[in-house]
């Protein structure tokens, strides 16, 4: 298998479709495999990898049902702790935003709308960085990697999610963070409807607690 990315928790492999699913067909699949950790005892290691693999599968499917484009799940192997899913081809939004002439309001708003759809479905993504968003050639936005996601309908969890987005934007896209966040929050409010302000307000509070990085709060308004 061709290693695509090695994270702290899992490895991603890119494979031809037919190698994995034994059917004719073009395209490629991504295999996400949660690797065993030698530092912890087997009982804990297996329990964690098993519950997280099945949770992530559920989150990806439920997100799709909520109107957020996510990779199609082809197979789940709870013995090998693998998820076989659709390979979403295209640049990460991280790369798109690095273009100095970037000013795609609609994309920014759609990011906010996607987050609102997740939140309304009771899901928080848990890792809203622009590396986990992919823009396909056809201009479709995908959210990938729900490895840190959970079902949590609380204002606090949603606030953390928005805060993570802001932090991620600040660390990589400090020049356009104001623009991107403003439009994303506009999309979020539009899609979430009543209660969106409470979540945004909470994100602001979380930032003020000093738990996280930045001190400026003007971007929230």
């Amino acid at each position, binding site marked *: 298998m061709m290693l695509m990315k090695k994270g702290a928790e899992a490895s991603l492999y890119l494979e031809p479709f037919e190698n994995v699913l034994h059917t004719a067909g073009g395209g490629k699949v991504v295999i996400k495999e949660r690797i065993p950790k030698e530092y912890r*005892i087997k009982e804990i290691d297996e329990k964690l990898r098993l519950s997280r693999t099945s949770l992530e599968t559920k989150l990806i499917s439920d997100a799709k049902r909520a109107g957020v484009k996510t990779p199609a799940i082809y197979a789940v192997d709870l013995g090998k702790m693998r998820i076989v899913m659709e390979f979403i081809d295209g640049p990460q939004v991280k790369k798109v935003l690095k273009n100095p002439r970037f000013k795609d309001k609609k994309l920014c708003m759609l990011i906010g709308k996607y987050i609102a759809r997740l939140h309304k479905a009771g899901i928080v993504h848990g890792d809203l960085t622009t590396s986990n968003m992919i823009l396909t050639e056809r201009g479709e936005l995908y959210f990938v990697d729900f490895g840190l996601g959970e079902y949590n309908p609380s204002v606090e969890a949603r606030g953390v999610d928005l805060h993570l987005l802001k932090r991620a934007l600040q660390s990589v896209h400090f020049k356009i963070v104001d623009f991107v966040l403003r439009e994303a929050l506009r999309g979020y409010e539009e899609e979430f409807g009543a209660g969106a302000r409470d979540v945004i307000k909470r994100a602001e509070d979380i930032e003020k607690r000093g738990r996280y990085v930045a001190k400026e709060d003007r971007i929230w308004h």
Partner: protein
Amino acid sequence: MVNMLCLGIEGTAHTFGVGIVKSDGKILSNFSKTYVPEKGGIHPRDASQFHAANARAVLDEALTQANVELKDIDLVAFSQGPGLGPVLRTASTAARALAISLDVPIIGVNHCIAHIEIGRLTENTKDPVTLYVSGGNTQVIAFDTGKYRVFGETLDIPIGNCLDVFAREAGIPHPGGPKIERLAKEGKKYIPLPYVVKGMDLSFSGLMTEAVRMTRLKKDLRDVAFSLQETAFAALVEVTERALAHTEKKEVMLTGGVAANTRLREMLQVMAKGQGAKFFVPPMELCGDQGAMIGWTGILAYKSGSKQKMDETQARQRWRTDEVEVTWREK
């Protein structure tokens, strides 16, 4: 001043300590006394009274061991926070009195950062991801653009507190940590306990409650101790690993009182190896709370231009690691 002498005063929780450190990094002395409650947990007022009653003796012993006199001191540093209010006020009062009578500058130091800095000094690490675990704190910390950022931390009780309370509830005498470790070594059967990692943060209160419940159900104490350690430490190591992968740093450091635990060390060592990172633990006498770390961090801050006025020296109970401008490290 070519080689200045700093007297560091630590007082945030149980321990009152005085350390005398030279600006070339030499620790001349490091003496402390620790308040042990007769029963139950720490009482802030009793602890502060213990510190006040012992301050003079600790100071004298530190001076004697360093073979210096008070007039040789060029700078007074103290633990300004975070910690228990009454205890912090005792330490800061002692520091102010000393600085005024000696007519030398005073500097308040962040306790958590002092733990990292003394480790960086003795272990000669450049830029570690630090797991700081004690009775009062549980944080995964890494330096980034001018500040020590908290990548993950406990959302409720610190791991050291989790172990202490469990020990007390299970009838294990103080100090609980080493005894839990000994029991855990004989444990064989893993009893499933709540494992809570939320994003990069940790939670131990549910784990503690459940472990206590297991002892009430008359489960073998050795198995419970084993399961408690394995569960809590796996969560700590997981968050540290994530921070390491995220920051792409090549060093891991363990410090704080819980660093004494050999199983935790072993697990971090294995994780670090897997991530291609080096693993460090400062000598145990510098992992716990003591004055030398305060003195050394005071020197770092002072030499990089930090100055403090007397009216800026009030105790800061909730002073966060990531609020401190780290003037002594390159952005």
